[in-house]
């Protein structure tokens, strides 16, 4: 049944579903049953494939537009289905699984070096919006100090792309080659927000998670610590940062 739904070979099914059943080791009576119900078997194939492909079309509209222009969307989706990675019973996991497959397989990335970044950017806000809720670590404080570490909210993601993939549209799906740094986070209402960061701020947010703020700022040649602390206060107020922790 997995082959019937996931494999590319629709022509074989249309021509003789009984032969397809035989190929999968089913008995003569079963082969006959498949043969007699050919249109219905094709309907099942179509329904199930629609269930699997629809979330990709919904979640990756720009990627789809880019690939469809050269007839590559359907082969891309088929290559993903061929990988047999749809293990989760959560429908919401189909799109992230596709993203993981793109990363692992490098599909299309010789021709479109920004493909993985583009796909990631398309679902970044959804990944952040639906990240499982969790309590922040205990002992955080609201006011940052030079000796503190930054503790991001569990849903927050800091991403760096080599292309401005967050600016593309279905009409113009090819991104400008420009290093881009973003922080995606949930605000107090639980809604996803996206902010573009300077390279230095992005680096600071990454480094200050494991080394004191003043030390991280110095290593990045950021002399104005007051300005940094103000920015961090804003990010905590907005929800990107869970709080600050003084190392013991």
């Amino acid at each position: 049944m997995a082959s019937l739904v996931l494999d590319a070979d629709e022509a074989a099914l249309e021509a003789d579903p009984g032969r397809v059943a035989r190929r999968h080791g089913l008995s003569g009576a079963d082969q006959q049953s498949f043969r007699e119900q050919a249109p219905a078997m094709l309907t099942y194939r179509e329904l199930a494939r629609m269930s699997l492909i629809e979330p990709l079309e919904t979640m990756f509209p720009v990627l789809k537009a880019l690939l469809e222009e050269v007839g590559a969307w359907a082969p891309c989706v088929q290559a993903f289905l061929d990988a047999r990675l749809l293990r989760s019973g959560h429908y919401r996991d189909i799109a992230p699984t596709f993203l993981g497959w793109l990363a692992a397989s490098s599909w299309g990335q010789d021709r479109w070096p920004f493909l993985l970044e583009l796909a990631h950017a398309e679902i970044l806000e959804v990944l952040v919006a639906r990240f499982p809720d969790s309590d922040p670590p205990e002992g955080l404080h609201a006011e940052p100090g030079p000796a503190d570490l930054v503790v991001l909210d569990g849903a927050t993601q800091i991403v760096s792309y080599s292309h401005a993939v967050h600016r593309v549209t279905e009409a113009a799906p090819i991104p400008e080659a420009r290093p881009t740094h973003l922080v995606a986070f949930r605000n107090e209402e639980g809604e996803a927000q996206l902010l573009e960061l300077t390279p230095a701020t992005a680096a600071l947010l990454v480094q200050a998670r494991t080394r004191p703020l003043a030390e991280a700022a110095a290593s990045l040649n950021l002399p104005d610590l007051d300005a940094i602390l103000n920015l961090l206060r804003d990010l905590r107020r907005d929800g990107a940062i869970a709080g600050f922790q003084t190392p013991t």
Partner: protein
Amino acid sequence: MTQDRFTGVGVGLRRPHLEQVAQLQDHGVPFWETCPENVVGDGGRQHRLACAILDRDPVLTHGLTISVGGFDAWDEEYLRDLGEFLVRTGTPWHSEHLCFTSVDANCLHELLPLPFTREAVRHTIARARELQSRLPVPLLLENITYYAELGAPEMDEADFITAVLEGADVGWLLDVNNVYVNALNFGFDPKEWLSGMPLDRVAQLHIAGHKKFGDLTVDTHGAEVIDPVIDLMQWTLARLGRPVPVLLERDNHIPDLDVLLAERARIQHAYDAALVMTGVRHG
């Protein structure tokens, strides 16, 4: 198995309506039905809203992907989370579909029919009993629509469903729209079909819309419920002589909440009328 607080016509709780439903204290819906797969492990605003509603209002739970008739191993982590979720919601039972949804660990996200064979009956009974032993509430199985018989059948659908329900000793979530759709596709009388079924096992009904594609009628959950299906619901309620809860399903082309609530009210009216006709008190 029916508990008194679950009567009348409930509605499937869907993401587009969460904001509004969370604000509405007096929505008139006696209970919601939720799919655990859509809530367990999720996060963010929509998740918080869903949890707030499920904590506030009566809830029934209805699973989509456990693959009762399949061969893949149970997802232990999900079963554990599901059990906790069922306890949290206070649902009196949990329903799954009498079908399979995964093959070789691939979840196909489609309700696929089991072969109507003695071997499939034995296998599904064993799986349903095992699943029941892992759940904190009684398990119901729902009859599905099917568009092809997978392999050569040794019995008909009615005998298959009856054998599984009785062999596994579980309750029945009777989807009257699925019976109606199967009757159209396979050419039988739905009332005659139901007359031969173990209606004493029915704990809940489902009702929904469907759509015709060429010669085939498909259970789309994407249209209003048509009068013949409402009539079948009323006929079933009369035969049952009990006010089992009915759940209005809408998963595609989801209308605005007020439109859906108006449809619920229309079906509730039919529900009440059926119970009055048969002298059953409820609510």
